[in-house]
């Protein structure tokens, strides 16, 4: 008989040390999946106890109360108000930080009302000891009618005792109604009765939560929702008022108890952490330090990622060549060699940069710096319709918009979150870099400026700033377009600075990189295969004619070997479906200074922007080399038949550069936007406004300069 796997929910305030405990308990068995019906990632891991029990530990997002704000936080209430939910816990491991224990009691007493077996765990006892904080745990345990245990995830003390308590917990039977339970007011009783009439609950507090949250709880059927809503309309009450009263009553109830249980308290009010803050968040010094840190982060991304990126490139070109030589000549081999392998390579090539970015960001986060950045920039961000928390997403976007968009889940206000999602892809991501590298040479000749700077380096920086400016300005415009009645607010703890825990950092990096591979990878791969088809096949007759023509030219001019292959490939591409598409869109892009060849590159860029370089290489029949310099020379030699001047003159190149800065050329980002906003409307809006922005700026640049 297979034993049922018990589910243990890890619940606590943000910064309670919950994640560290989760990492200690589950280590590498962690996995990320989805909560049913919502997009919030579910973090869970397995733990085998000495009793032979296998338990699943679910790390729920940190919350302060069962009256939640952000979509991250709502998931906790969604799960706990629905005993049929697949994640409804058999037991709760409640995590509270040793310092400021009182702030962890509001949520603990609310959870206690739900009559789920619970263990109260005080973490960071090592910090508590150092600060000389001491509690009478017997008194706390008596009051809460719960086992209370003190542990340290950092120094791994009492972890075995904790596991032993967990065994007791999952084998305990039933939970009595708590003595400290709050007596419902008559209005609250009416709310409970209303809910029970529609969907009977075994617990009154659960009914009360459903009454307060019935509008957004997903597990209610629309019928239940409208019935509850109709009945509640006849009761004169204010949900906010009731929540405030309930919260205050709880504070009044547990406050005296906490006072009594404090044996020693933390008297050191101006800690060293606060002294660091007076510099780190200083009016002038703060932003300056922030920009220095960001400068270092992006330097590191580009400097450290280069070598592993070259390896990945070499591995994939080796795979392509060896597959080509060992597999028989067939369409399937072509699919593998020209479609699947480069597609996979196109995904994996970004891993070094993304890994480094998230490594550095999670170190900053773990150390406590990111919440300071949120605090510093909230005012500026508010002015353009964003939230201080948007800064994290905008920085991540410098590597890739996909994890950036996923990181907006902590923004509680829907409008601010939506605007962050919409504008994040305007920040130049790493996929645009190879394109910039090819084009910038045509726009800005390389020379030394003011003795120390390289003009092209400056141009690079200018392009980045352009992306940032476009993001902020677009956000500001959206602020006036998107309507919302929801109140916006910010409440973020500035935790004590601490030394980052390596295992926490590494697990976060692993989580982010995996979500990128699965989020973007699948689509990039799929699009690569579609594009391979479009570029490999065409109307049979046209393909044959192109081949004949190329062969006769090659024969006449005596072109042999690789060059001959490249020439054939170029003619083939022109005759393919991709070539037809390029010619089809030529009239639209001609005002921007582009021909059908650039048109093909624009189309193929939808898989991922850096595909531009590869496509250019094929078009200009240098497919057999991947050297940027060779491609650039070919492009430089190309003549525009209408003007008789070089095709890639300043005007066209700048126009193309601007197009790549602003255009939404990333299917994966659109897919993630769809997933996060749960509608096709927003990816459509995002695609449209960015395309319009790209088209108009390129048009303006080309028409003014040519």
């Amino acid at each position: 008989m297979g034993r049922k796997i018990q589910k243990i929910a890890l619940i606590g305030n943000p910064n309670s040390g919950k994640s560290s405990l989760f990492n200690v308990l589950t280590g590498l068995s962690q996995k990320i999946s989805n909560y049913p019906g919502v997009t919030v990632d579910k973090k869970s891991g397995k733990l085998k106890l000495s009793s032979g029990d296998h338990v699943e530990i679910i790390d729920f997002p940190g919350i302060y109360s069962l009256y939640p704000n952000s979509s991250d936080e709502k998931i906790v209430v969604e799960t706990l108000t629905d005993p049929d939910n697949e994640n409804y816990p058999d037991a709760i491991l409640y995590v509270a930080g040793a310092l400021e224990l009182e702030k962890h009691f509001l949520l603990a007493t609310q959870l206690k009302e739900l009559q789920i077996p619970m263990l109260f765990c005080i973490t960071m006892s090592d910090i508590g000891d150092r600060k000389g904080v001491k509690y009478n745990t017997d008194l706390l345990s008596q009051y809460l009618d719960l086992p209370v245990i003190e542990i340290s995830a950092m120094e791994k003390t009492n972890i075995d005792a904790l596991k032993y308590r967990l065994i007791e917990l999952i084998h305990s039977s039933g939970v009595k109604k708590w003595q400290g339970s709050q007596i419902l007011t008559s209005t609250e009783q009416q709310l409970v009765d209303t809910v029970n009439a529609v969907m009977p609950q075994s617990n009154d507090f659960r009914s009360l939560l459903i009454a307060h949250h019935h509008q957004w709880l997903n597990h209610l059927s629309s019928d239940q929702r409208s019935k509850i809503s109709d009945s509640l309309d006849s009761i004169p009450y204010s949900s906010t008022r009731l929540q405030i009263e309930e919260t205050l009553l709880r504070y009044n109830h547990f406050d005296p108890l906490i006072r009594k249980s404090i044996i020693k308290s933390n008297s050191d009010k101006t800690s060293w952490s606060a002294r660091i803050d007076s510099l780190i968040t200083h009016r002038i010094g703060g932003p300056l330090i922030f920009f220095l840190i960001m400068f270092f982060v992006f330097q590191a991304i580009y400097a450290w990622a280069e070598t592993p990126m070259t390896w990945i490139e070499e591995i994939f070109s080796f795979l392509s060549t060896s597959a080509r030589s060992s597999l028989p000549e067939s369409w399937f081999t072509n699919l593998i060699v020209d479609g699947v392998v480069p597609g996979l390579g196109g995904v994996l090539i970004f891993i070094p940069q993304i890994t480094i970015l998230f490594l550095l960001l999670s170190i900053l986060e773990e150390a406590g710096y990111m919440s300071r950045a949120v605090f510093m920039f909230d005012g500026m961000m508010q002015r353009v319709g964003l939230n201080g928390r948007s800064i994290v997403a905008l920085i991540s976007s410098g590597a890739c918009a996909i994890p950036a968009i996923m990181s907006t889940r902590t923004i509680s206000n829907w409008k601010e979150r939506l605007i962050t999602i919409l504008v994040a892809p305007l920040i130049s991501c790493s996929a645009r870099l190879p394109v910039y590298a090819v084009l910038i040479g045509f726009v800005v000749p390389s020379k030394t400026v003011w003795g120390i700077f390289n003009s092209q380096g400056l141009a690079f920086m200018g392009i980045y700033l352009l992306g940032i400016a476009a993001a902020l300005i677009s956000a500001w415009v959206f602020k006036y377009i998107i309507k919302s009645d929801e109140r916006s607010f910010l409440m973020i703890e500035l935790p004590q600075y601490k030394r980052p825990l390596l295992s926490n950092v590494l697990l976060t990096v692993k989580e982010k990189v995996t979500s990128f591979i699965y989020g973007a990878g699948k689509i990039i791969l799929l699009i690569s295969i579609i594009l391979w088809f479009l570029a490999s096949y065409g109307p049979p007759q046209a393909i044959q004619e192109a081949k004949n023509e190329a062969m006769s030219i090659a024969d006449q001019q005596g072109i042999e070997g690789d060059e001959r292959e490249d020439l054939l490939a170029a003619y083939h591409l022109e005759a393919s479906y991709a070539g037809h598409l390029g010619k089809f869109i030529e009239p639209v892009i001609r005002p921007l200074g582009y021909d059908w060849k650039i048109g093909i590159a624009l189309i193929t860029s939808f898989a991922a922007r850096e595909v531009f370089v590869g496509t250019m290489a094929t078009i200009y029949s240098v497919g057999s080399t991947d050297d940027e310099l060779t491609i650039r020379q070919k492009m430089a030699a190309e003549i525009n038949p209408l003007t008789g001047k070089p095709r890639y003159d300043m005007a066209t190149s700048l126009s193309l550069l601007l197009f790549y800065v602003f255009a939404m050329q990333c299917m994966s980002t659109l897919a993630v936007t769809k997933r996060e906003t749960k509608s096709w409307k927003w990816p459509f809006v995002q695609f449209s406004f960015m395309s319009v922005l790209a088209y108009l700026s390129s048009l303006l640049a080309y028409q003014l300069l040519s």
Partner: protein
Amino acid sequence: MERNEIYVDRNLWDLQKGEESTVKNFNDSALACKLLTIGIVPKARIAMIRKSPFGGAVCIRLGGTYIAIRKSEALCILVD
């Protein structure tokens, strides 16, 4: 004029940098509801530590915890 000002409620935003006071009440119930959950409750001791570089937010100390909140939230917290 002077007499009247004594009766005007002070809010958290009015406090000087580093000044500590006691929370009296709130003038906005929707925001109060959120602030209560992090422990900003009547009778709590609260200190204004500093305002953010670009305005808009303020860092406060509540017991031994430092928290950043927006100006609009600070304005709704009435203090002694």
